[in-house]
C-alpha cells in the first residue's frame, strides 16, 4: 500500500513541472530543486492549517493583456544593421534579369554611337522593332511610386484616449480598472473575492466578466496563478479571523472585446504602470508582466 501512495504523491509534482514547461517558462532545471524543498516545507505546515481556517482573505485577479497588433519600429542600430545586411546580400548575389537587360541596353547604345555602326545588322537581330529600354521602365515605375501614398502604420499619431484598446498597436497593453478597496478607490488589475466552492481561476474569470459595461473575451493561460500580492489590513480593520488579504493573479490574452468609453478602464504599457499602481503592488505585478 505504501509504494503506490508515494507514487501518487510524486505524480502531481511531475505534472506541475510539465505544466510550467507548457506555459512557456524556461529555467525549470533550477526551479525543480527549489520547488521540491518548498513542497517539503509546505507539507509540514499543512497539518497545522487544515483544522484552522486561514486568516487571509483570498482574491482572484486577472492580468488581461492585449498582444501587439503591428511590429515595432526599428532602433537606430537595428536600422543600420538591416541596411548593412541588405548591402552584403546584394554584393554576393548574381545579376537579375532586369539588371542584365540594363547592361545589354547600355551596350547597344554604345554600339549605336560608335563610328562603325551597322544598323542593318542590328535590325536583323532585333526585328527592327522599337523596344522599350529597361531604363525607361524604371523611370515610369519611380514616377508611379512618387504618386502613391501609403496609409499610416500606427493610427495612434492623433493620440487616442488611454481607455481605448486601439492605443499603442506595437506594444502589449494591460487592463487596469478603478475599484474601491477598503476606503480608497485605486487603480488595480480587476479582481473579485473568492467564494467557497470555486477554484481561484473561476474567481478571476468572474472578476473579469463582472466588470460593468464591458464585454471582454479572454483566453486564460492555464490554472496556475502567475503571481501573488499579500497585504495586511490597517490595524482598525484587523481582527482575529482576517489579518489581511492575498491576491492571486492569472494571466489571460484578449481575443475580442469592447467596452464603453464612460467606464474607467485603462489600457497601459508596462512602462506606464508606475503612474497608476501603488509601489508595493507594482513591485509584485511588474515581475510577471513581460514586455517581450
Amino acid at each position, binding site marked *: 500500500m505504501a509504494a503506490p501512495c508515494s507514487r501518487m504523491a510524486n505524480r502531481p509534482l511531475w505534472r506541475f513541472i510539465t505544466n510550467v514547461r*507548457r506555459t512557456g*517558462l524556461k529555467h525549470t532545471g533550477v526551479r525543480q530543486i527549489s520547488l521540491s524543498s*518548498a513542497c517539503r516545507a509546505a507539507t509540514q505546515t499543512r497539518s497545522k492549517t487544515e483544522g484552522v481556517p486561514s486568516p487571509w482573505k483570498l482574491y482572484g485577479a486577472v492580468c488581461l493583456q492585449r498582444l*501587439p497588433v*503591428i*511590429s515595432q519600429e526599428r532602433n537606430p*542600430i537595428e536600422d543600420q544593421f538591416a541596411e548593412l545586411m541588405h548591402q552584403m546580400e546584394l554584393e554576393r548575389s548574381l545579376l537579375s534579369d532586369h539588371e542584365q537587360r540594363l547592361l545589354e541596353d547600355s551596350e547597344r547604345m554604345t554600339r549605336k554611337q560608335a563610328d562603325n555602326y551597322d544598323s542593318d545588322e542590328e535590325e536583323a537581330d532585333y526585328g527592327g522593332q522599337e523596344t522599350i529600354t529597361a531604363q525607361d521602365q524604371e523611370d515610369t515605375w519611380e514616377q508611379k511610386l512618387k504618386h502613391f501614398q501609403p496609409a499610416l502604420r500606427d493610427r495612434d499619431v492623433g493620440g487616442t484616449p488611454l481607455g481605448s484598446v486601439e492605443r499603442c498597436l506595437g506594444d502589449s497593453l494591460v487592463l487596469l480598472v478603478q475599484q474601491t478597496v477598503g476606503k480608497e478607490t485605486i487603480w488595480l488589475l480587476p479582481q473579485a473575492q473568492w467564494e467557497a466552492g470555486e477554484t481561484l481561476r473561476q474567481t478571476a474569470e468572474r472578476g473579469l466578466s463582472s466588470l460593468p459595461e464591458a464585454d471582454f473575451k479572454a483566453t486564460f493561460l*492555464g490554472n496556475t496563478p502567475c503571481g*501573488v500580492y499579500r497585504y495586511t489590513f490597517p490595524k482598525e480593520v484587523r481582527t482575529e479571523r482576517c489579518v489581511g488579504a492575498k491576491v492571486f493573479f492569472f494571466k489571460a490574452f484578449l481575443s475580442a472585446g469592447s467596452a464603453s468609453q464612460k467606464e474607467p478602464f485603462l489600457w497601459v504599457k508596462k512602462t506606464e504602470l508606475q503612474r497608476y499602481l501603488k509601489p508595493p503592488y507594482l513591485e509584485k505585478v511588474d515581475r510577471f508582466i513581460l514586455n517581450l
Partner: protein
Amino acid sequence: MSIAVSRALCRVLSRQTAVPTNVSSLMGVDGHVSQGPWFASVLTLKTSAPLRAEPKKKKKVDPRREQMVRERLKKKLKKLERVPPELIPIEDFTTPAKYMDETRVRGAPQLPFEESERRALLLKEWSRYKQTQHRAEMEAVGLAVEAQREALEELRLESEELYQAALRPDPLLFPFNHQGPSYTPPKAQYEAPEGKYNNITKVYTQ
C-alpha cells in the same frame, strides 16, 4: 488438302452426270425417293475428311496459342513491376540552368578601408546589442518563474485543495492559435476580392 477437295469435287461431278437416268428409273420403279448414290455423295460432301480437318486444327492449336500469348504478356508485366518506382524530383533542389550562366556574375566589390572598418565595428556593436537583449529576456523570464513559484507557495499555505486545483493542466487551452503582429494594422470590415487562378504546379505520379 486442296487435292482432296478437288478429288471430292470430281467425284461429285461424275456422280451428277450419271444421276439423272438413275433418278427417273428409281422414281418409276419404287414410287418414292430413296437414298440413291447421288444423295450418298452429297452427304459425304458434308462430312468428308479433308473438310473436317480444318476446324479440328483450330480447336486444338488456337487455345494453346492464346494461352502462350497470355503467359508471355504476364511475364512482361512481372518484369515491368519489378522495376523500382522513379523518384519524384524535388524542383527546389535543382538549380535552373539560367543561373549557371557566367555572364550573370557580379564583379567583386572593391571596398575602401573605411567601409570595411565601419562594417566590422557595426557587426561587433550588433553582437553586443543582441547579447544585452538576450540577457534582459532571460532575466525577465526568470523573474516571472520566481513570481509563479511564490504564488504557488502562498497558495499551498492557504489551502491544499485550491493548490491541487491550480496544478491541474487545462485541457481546453491547446490547440492555442493567435495571429502574430503584422507590418500594417488590419482594416476594419475588409472584404478580400475573390479571384480566379490557374494552378500550374506539376504533379508527379509514381
